[in-house]
C-alpha cells in the first residue's frame, strides 16, 4: 500500500470509530424500529409482475409531456413516443411533473434505472419485456428471436433498430480488437436481423438464461450505432478515428468505446444518446447533472410521458460518513448504496428531525459474508486441513450467528449459509440452515476428531504433528459489514481453540492473490443468489471462474477454464459440480434444471465450500419526504440492479 493510501486508510478507521461512537450515542435514544415487512405482504402494483400493457391495450390515445419541454422546439410528444408506448403503473399515485432530484453520484444507477431489451420482475424470477416487445426460444434452445417495439428513439431522436443491437454484438463484443478475450457469454453467438425490429440469435449450445444476462446487464447489448460508427474502424477510416482519439486523449478507439459502454463519467458522455429516463447534461468537478430524456419510451396510465422528475444532480461523495451525514440531514432525495447497516440508528434519528423517510429494505445477498478457506492452498498441511469437510463444518458451527444478527444487524437479518434467497425455485430451507447452528461442543469434538489437539497446554490447538496452527483471514472491508463481522467470527474461532487472525488487505491484493490462489482464507459477500443470476453464475458453489470474490478453489477453476491445460484436476465430486453447472446453464427442461440447481446447492449444504453468516440483511434506503412512489420495502442488490423492478421513472415530487 502506498503512503497516501495508507494514510487515508488509517484515517478511515479513525473516522469509522468516531462514527461508531456517535451511532452508539444515538442508539441510546432510538430503540424502536418499525416491524419488518415480509416480501410476500408487500403490495406492489400487480402490473409490475406482468409484461407492461401498452397504450392501445389500455385505450390511451392522448399523451402529455413535462412543461419544461413545452418551449423546447422538439416534435410533439406523440411523435417522440414509440408507436405504442408501454404503460407503467406507479406504486401509489399518478405523479406530477417537475423538480430536481439531489443524490450522490454512486446512487445514480438507482434513480436512473438501466433500460435494456428486457427488464426484471419484482418476483426476482421473471424476465419481462422492455425495449423488446416479445421474444421466443426455439424448442431446442439454440435460437432466440427478439422483436423490438416499433418507433423507439434514442435520446437524440434517432430511431432504435436491430442495427444497434447487431452493431453492439457483432462489431464490439465479437470484435477481437475491442475484446481480445471474448466474454464467455458471447462466445459462439451468431446474430442476424430479419428486419428493423426483429433479430435472431443462434447459440452454439442452448442458452435458456441468455435473456437473464441481457436483462441484468443491458449495457453490453445496447450501443447507438449512429453515434459510435464514427469511432469504429469498420465504418470510419483509421486516420479520422486517430484524430478523434487524439482530441479526446484516448489511446485507442476500443478504450474509448469501453469507457462509454461502462457508462463511466467522462466529458464525451454528454454527446452519447441513451435509452434511459435521464441523459447527462453536464459534468463539472464533483457534480454530474442529468436532464430528462425527451424521447423516453414509457408513459403512465394517464398518458403522461415518464419520467416525472425533470432533472437529477449527482454529487461526487467519496466518504461513506459524508454520504450518511447528507442523507440523515435531508440533503438527498434518494440514498442507499453508501449507507452502511450500522448507521441505521443515526439515519432513524434524522427521520425525526430532518424530513426524511428511512425505509429498511433487505439486501439480496444470500449471506453478507462468504467465508472461504482455500482448498487449493500451496501449503500442504493447510490444504489438507481445508479439504477436510469436518474442519469446515467445525468452523461453521463455532460461529454464533444469532449473536451476530443481534449485534450487527439489530436482529433484522437472517442467519444462514451461502445459498440462494428464500423465494428462489432452487431453494430448500435446509440449504440455509445446514451446519448453521451454534454448537461449540460439537465444533470442539470435530476438531479433536481431526487430530487438532492442544499439545502444549496454551489453550490453542496445534496441528496433528504438534506444529503451530494459525489461520489468517485476509480480506477487503467492502460493501457489507465485513470487518465488524470478522471480529466476531475470529473471536468465536478462538473460543474453540483456533489461533485465528484477520488482516485487511488492499483491493488489488485481494484480486491478484485470489486469482493465483495465494489467499489462505478470505471473505467476500454472496451476491448472485436469485433466480436471475444463480443459474448462469453459480459461482460460490462451483469452481468455474477466476475472480476476486472466489478464493477457495482457483486451481480447479483454472483447470475448468483452460480445458485441463492449466491448474489442477479437481476430484470427482468437484468435477461433478462443474458438469452439473454446464447442464444447468443449457438444459431446456425446467424440471431437470431445478433438480440440478438443488443438487449443486445441496452439495454446498453438505460440504460448505464456503461458509455463510447472516444474509438478507437490513439495508437502509433513505428518501426525502417529498419523493413519492418509492416502494416502502424492496430487495436491494446487483441481481436486479437495485431498483430496476421498482420503476424509478415513476417517482415524483409532492407539490
Amino acid at each position, binding site marked *: 500500500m502506498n503512503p497516501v493510501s495508507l494514510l487515508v486508510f488509517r484515517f478511515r478507521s479513525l473516522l469509522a470509530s468516531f462514527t461508531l461512537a456517535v451511532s452508539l450515542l444515538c442508539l441510546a435514544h432510538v430503540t424502536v424500529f418499525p416491524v419488518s415487512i415480509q416480501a410476500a405482504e408487500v403490495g406492489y402494483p400487480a402490473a409490475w409482475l406482468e409484461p407492461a400493457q401498452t397504450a392501445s391495450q389500455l385505450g390511451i390515445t392522448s399523451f402529455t409531456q413535462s412543461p419544461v419541454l413545452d418551449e423546447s422546439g422538439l416534435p410533439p410528444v406523440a411523435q417522440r413516443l414509440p408507436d405504442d408506448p408501454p404503460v407503467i403503473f406507479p406504486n401509489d399515485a399518478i405523479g406530477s411533473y417537475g423538480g430536481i432530484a439531489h443524490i450522490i453520484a454512486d446512487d445514480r444507477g438507482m434513480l436512473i434505472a438501466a433500460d435494456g431489451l428486457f427488464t426484471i420482475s419484482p418476483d426476482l424470477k421473471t424476465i419481462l419485456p422492455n425495449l423488446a416487445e416479445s421474444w421466443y426460444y426455439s424448442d431446442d434452445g439454440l435460437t432466440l428471436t427478439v422483436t423490438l417495439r416499433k418507433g423507439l428513439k434514442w435520446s437524440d431522436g434517432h430511431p432504435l433498430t436491430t442495427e444497434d443491437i447487431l452493431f453492439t454484438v457483432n462489431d464490439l463484443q465479437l470484435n477481437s480488437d475491442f475484446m*481480445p478475450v471474448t466474454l464467455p457469454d458471447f462466445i459462439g453467438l451468431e446474430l442476424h436481423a430479419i428486419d428493423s425490429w426483429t433479430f435472431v440469435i443462434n447459440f452454439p449450445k442452448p442458452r435458456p438464461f441468455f435473456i437473464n444476462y441481457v436483462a441484468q446487464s443491458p449495457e453490453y447489448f445496447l450501443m447507438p450505432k449512429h453515434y459510435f460508427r464514427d469511432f469504429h474502424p469498420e465504418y470510419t477510416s483509421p486516420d479520422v478515428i486517430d484524430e478523434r482519439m487524439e482530441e479526446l486523449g484516448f489511446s485507442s478507439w476500443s478504450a474509448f468505446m469501453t469507457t462509454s459502454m461502462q457508462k463511466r463519467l467522462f466529458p464525451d458522455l454528454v454527446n452519447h444518446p441513451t435509452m434511459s429516463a435521464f441523459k447527462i447534461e453536464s459534468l463539472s468537478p464533483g457534480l454530474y447533472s442529468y436532464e430528462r430524456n425527451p424521447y423516453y419510451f414509457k408513459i403512465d396510465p394517464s398518458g403522461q410521458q415518464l419520467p416525472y422528475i425533470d432533472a437529477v444532480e449527482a*454529487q461526487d461523495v467519496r466518504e461513506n460518513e459524508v454520504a450518511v*451525514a447528507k442523507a440523515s440531514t435531508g440533503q438527498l432525495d434518494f440514498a442507499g448504496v453508501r449507507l452502511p447497516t450500522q448507521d441505521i440508528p443515526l439515519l432513524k434519528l434524522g427521520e425525526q428531525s430532518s424530513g426524511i423517510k428511512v425505509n429498511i429494505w433487505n439486501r439480496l445477498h444470500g449471506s453478507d459474508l462468504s467465508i472461504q478457506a482455500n482448498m487449493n492452498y500451496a501449503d500442504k498441511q493447510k490444504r489438507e486441513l481445508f479439504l477436510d469437510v469436518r474442519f469446515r463444518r467445525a468452523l461453521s458451527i463455532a460461529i454464533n450467528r444469532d449473536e451476530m444478527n443481534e449485534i450487527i444487524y439489530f436482529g433484522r437479518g437472517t442467519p444462514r449459509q451461502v445459498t440462494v434467497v428464500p423465494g428462489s425455485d432452487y431453494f430448500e430451507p435446509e440449504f440455509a440452515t445446514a451446519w448453521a447452528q451454534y454448537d461449540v461442543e460439537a465444533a470442539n469434538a470435530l476438531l479433536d476428531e481431526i487430530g487438532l489437539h492442544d499439545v502444549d497446554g496454551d489453550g490453542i490447538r496445534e496441528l496433528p504433528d504438534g506444529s503451530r496452527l494459525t489461520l489468517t483471514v485476509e480480506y477487503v472491508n467492502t460493501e457489507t459489514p465485513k470487518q465488524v463481522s470478522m471480529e466476531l467470527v475470529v473471536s468465536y474461532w478462538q473460543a474453540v481453540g483456533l489461533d485465528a487472525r484477520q488482516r485487511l488487505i488492499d483491493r*488489488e*491484493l485481494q*484480486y491478484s492473490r485470489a486469482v493465483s490462489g495465494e489467499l489462505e482464507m478470505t471473505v467476500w459477500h454472496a451476491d448472485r443468489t436469485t433466480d436471475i443470476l444463480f443459474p448462469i453464475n453459480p459461482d460460490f458453489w462451483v469452481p468455474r471462474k477466476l475472480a*476476486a470474490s472466489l478464493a477457495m478453489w482457483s486451481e480447479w477453476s483454472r483447470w475448468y477454464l483452460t480445458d485441463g491445460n492449466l491448474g489442477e484436476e479437481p476430484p470427482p465430486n468437484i468435477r461433478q459440480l462443474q458438469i452439473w453447472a454446464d447442464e444447468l446453464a443449457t438444459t431446456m427442461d425446467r424440471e431437470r434444471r431445478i433438480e440440478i440447481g438443488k443438487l449443486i446447492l445441496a452439495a454446498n449444504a453438505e460440504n460448505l465450500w464456503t461458509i455463510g453468516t447472516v444474509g438478507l440483511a437490513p439495508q437502509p434506503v433513505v428518501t426525502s419526504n417529498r419523493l413519492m412512489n418509492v416502494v416502502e420495502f424492496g430487495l436491494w442488490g446487483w441481481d436486479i440492479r437495485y431498483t430496476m423492478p421498482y420503476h424509478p421513472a415513476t417517482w415524483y415530487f409532492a407539490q
Partner: protein
Amino acid sequence: MRKYVIRRLLGMIPTLAIISIIVFVVIQLPEGDIVTSTLDQLSATGVDLSDDRIQNLRAQYNLDQPLPVQYLAWIGNFITGDMGFSYLYAQPVNELVWERLGYTLLITTCALLFTWVLALPIGIYSAVRQYSVADYAFTTIGLIGLATPNFLVALILMYFGYTWFGLSFGGLFSPEYLNVPWSWGRFRDMLAHLWIPVVVIGTSGMAITMRLMRANLLDELKKPYVITARAKGVPPLKLLLKYPVRIAINPFISTIGLLLPALISGEAIVGVVLNLPTTGPLLVQSLITQDMYLAGSLIMMLSVLTVVGMLLSDLLLAWVDPRIRYERA
C-alpha cells in the same frame, strides 16, 4: 547572482529526472494497476473482477507494454506540457488539473493568510508577554488545534455549519448554486462555504507557526542588542518590529518553498471529507487507484514546485536578510 540562479536552475534537471523515475516506479510497485482498480470501482455496482475483462482492458489501455516504454512515453509528453491521460476519469490530465487548480489556490491561499494573520501576531504577543494568562490560553488553544485531526475538525464544523447556518454538507456551493453561472449570489454562497475549509486547513498550521514565532522571538529578545536598544530608549514597538521580529521571521521565509507544493497536496484529506473540487482529493484518488499518469503528473508538479520553491526561498531570504547576502558575496 545571475550565475548562481542559472547554476541552481541547471541543477534542477538531474534532480527532477531522478524524481520522475522514482515516482513512476514507486507508483507501479504495489500489486495491481488502474484496470483492476477501475473495475473494482465498477464492482461497487456489482461487476466482478473477472480475469477476461481485466485482460481486455489492459490491452485496450496499452498497459501490457513494458515499464520503460510506458515511462518514456509519459515523461516525453510531460516535458511538452501534455500530462497524459487519466484512466480513472477517462480524460486528459491537463483538463482535470486545470479545472481544479483555481479552487485549490483560492482555498489554500486563504488558509495561509488566515494562519499567518492570526498566528504571527499571537506568536509575537506570546513571546513579549511570556507566561501571561493570554500566552497560556493561546498556547492551549493552539496545541488543541495541532492535536486534533483535520478531518475531525472538518466534520464538526460541517455539523455546526449545517445546524447553525443551514449550510449543505461538503462542497463549496449550496445545491442551488452548484451548476449555475457566476453571479453575486453564487459568490456569496461560496464565501459562506469557504470558511470551513479555510479554518480547518488554517488551524492545522496555526499552532506550529505560533510556537515557532514565539520561540524564535524569545531567543532574539534576550540578545544584548535588544537590551542595549531598549536601554537607549528606542520605542518598544518600533524596536520589536524592526529588529527581533525581522530576524525571528526568517525561518518562515525559508519554508515558503515548501508551501508551494503544500498548495496542491496540503488539503488532500480535508478535501476528501469536505468534497472540495480541488486537486488534493484528485491526488489521493489517483494514488489509491494507481492511475499512473494522473498520479505521476501531479507528483511531478509537486516536485517541480518544491524545487522551484526552495530556490525562491533562498533568493527571498537573501533579499530580506542582509547577513546572508553578505556571506554569499
